């Protein structure tokens, strides 16, 4: 079988597709690409229409060799790319010959980059998804981040690359990233002081940011809520632990939690938050559920026109 040999894995490289559904009640998070738009862009460019899995690289530092002729494209956080030590344009589709070695390195922007290979990474799906959930040791390659020396199976190529998709390049964040959120049902239980802190504080992304969630500093959102019975968490939930510093929950979140939540960040802004490096300034603005739906319709259109 065709394979990709990993010479150097980097700090947190894992197999991801768009994630799994239907497993929350088992305590298994959806996982999936932290930047779903970057995933879709790469799938589109290679003509993948079956949610083919890619390699997600956090702060990419990857060396890999393909055992077969294939096409690749890299999406998400910008990188530098060499093929057999020759520097090439990292933002376009490349034809790779069997035995050629790729070296992919992060630049100074964003966190998650995606290496897509024609045919997709063909590890065994778990609950209909190849996404890795490292905490649950599920999916991907043995449920874990890749190590130096790993070999990944690659599926048969069934389609020709389509075209470059420059529209999906990561735009450099301005000085402040604005996260739109929809107030949840505990919103009104927070004190007015906490809510105005949420809306008026300029927060910063802390180094406690990973696939589970992103912790922010700068504001104290003490809820005044004594205790809460454990309940489901959702993508983008703004969770406030007793120390008052909010955590926005992302793909590998725990499926239930007992911390109060004033609301949830809309999904398109979650992807932008996932790409934000520590130190990035963050502000929150409140949006109605109807407005969030409208934004999602626009996104849906955007994604579907790429996967038809």
């Amino acid at each position, binding site marked *: 079988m065709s394979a990709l040999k990993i010479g150097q894995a980097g700090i947190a490289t894992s197999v991801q597709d768009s994630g799994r559904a239907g497993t929350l*009640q088992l305590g298994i998070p959806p996982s999936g690409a932290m930047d779903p738009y970057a995933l879709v862009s790469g799938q589109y460019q290679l003509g993948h229409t079956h949610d083919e899995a890619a390699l997600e690289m956090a702060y990419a530092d990857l060396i890999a060799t393909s055992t077969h002729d294939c096409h690749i494209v890299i999406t998400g956080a910008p990188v530098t790319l060499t093929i057999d030590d020759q520097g090439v344009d990292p933002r376009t589709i490349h034809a790779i010959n069997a035995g050629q070695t790729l070296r992919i390195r992060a630049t100074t922007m964003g966190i998650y980059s995606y290496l897509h290979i024609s045919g997709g990474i063909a590890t065994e799906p778990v609950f209909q998804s190849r996404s890795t959930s490292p905490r*649950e040791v599920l999916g991907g390659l043995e449920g874990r981040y890749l190590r130096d020396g790993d070999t990944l199976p690659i599926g048969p190529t069934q389609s020709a690359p389509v075209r470059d998709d420059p529209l999906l390049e990561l735009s450099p964040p301005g000085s402040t990233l604005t996260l739109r959120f929809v107030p949840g049902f505990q919103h009104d239980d927070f004190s007015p002081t906490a809510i105005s802190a949420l809306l008026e504080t300029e927060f910063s992304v802390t180094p406690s940011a990973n696939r589970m969630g992103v912790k922010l500093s700068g504001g104290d959102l003490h809820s005044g809520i004594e205790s809460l019975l*454990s309940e489901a968490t959702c993508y983008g939930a703004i969770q406030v632990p007793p120390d008052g510093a909010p955590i926005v929950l992302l793909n590998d979140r725990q499926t239930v939690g007992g911390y109060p939540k004033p609301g949830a960040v809309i999904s398109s802004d979650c992807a932008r938050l996932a790409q934000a490096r520590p130190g990035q300034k963050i502000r929150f603005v409140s949006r109605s559920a109807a407005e969030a739906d409208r934004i999602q319709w626009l996104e849906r259109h955007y994604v579907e026109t790429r996967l038809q």
Partner: protein
Amino acid sequence: MRLVLEADPAPELTRTLLAIEKSAQRHFNGSLTDSVIGYATLTLFFKPLQFQRDRVEAWLLEQVDLTKSDTHYDPSAAVILPVLYHPSVAPDLEWLADEKGLSIDDVIALHSETTYFAYATGFAPGFCYLGTLPHQLVTPRLATPRNKVPAGSVAIADLQTAVYPCESPGGWRLIGQCPQPLFDLNNTPANLLSVGDTVRFEPMSEADFYAMGGAR
């Protein structure tokens, strides 16, 4: 979309939530991707843009009225979980007995002679929140959670008890070890316990524990 019932957790409340969940799975078949029951909540997850908020909300409120009168509940037999209660595998057992002025045998009797109800699943695959712990054993979580709680640890916190299905960080007090796996991908369903189950813990000997593969 989340339904919150303004009531204290109780098996009756959970059974109502289970009944509404079942109806929702039928009614929204195709657009509903996940549903999660909490102590007093039912959270429904839909495919993006495949639901209308006001309609789902109206439907849910209607179900609350309809389902309240549902008494056709057939309690299933309790799931029995064997446990070795021994300080060698339970770092908080002696501490708990001292703290509560009980003997270790008293703690074991109190914990294992209670029938528990499964209120919620989550936190980790196979993890199930069980209640209600006898009041003599009620104790708060550790101020600083342990970095590693071994798989199979039988634990208590506040009014709850649970078994850690896999090694994970955790702040609950550890009073025993259960060699019975709670989550196995080769089984259907993969999880041993589901919301609405009743559960009992059964003390086992060290010999039986090690014979069952409990060496953790």
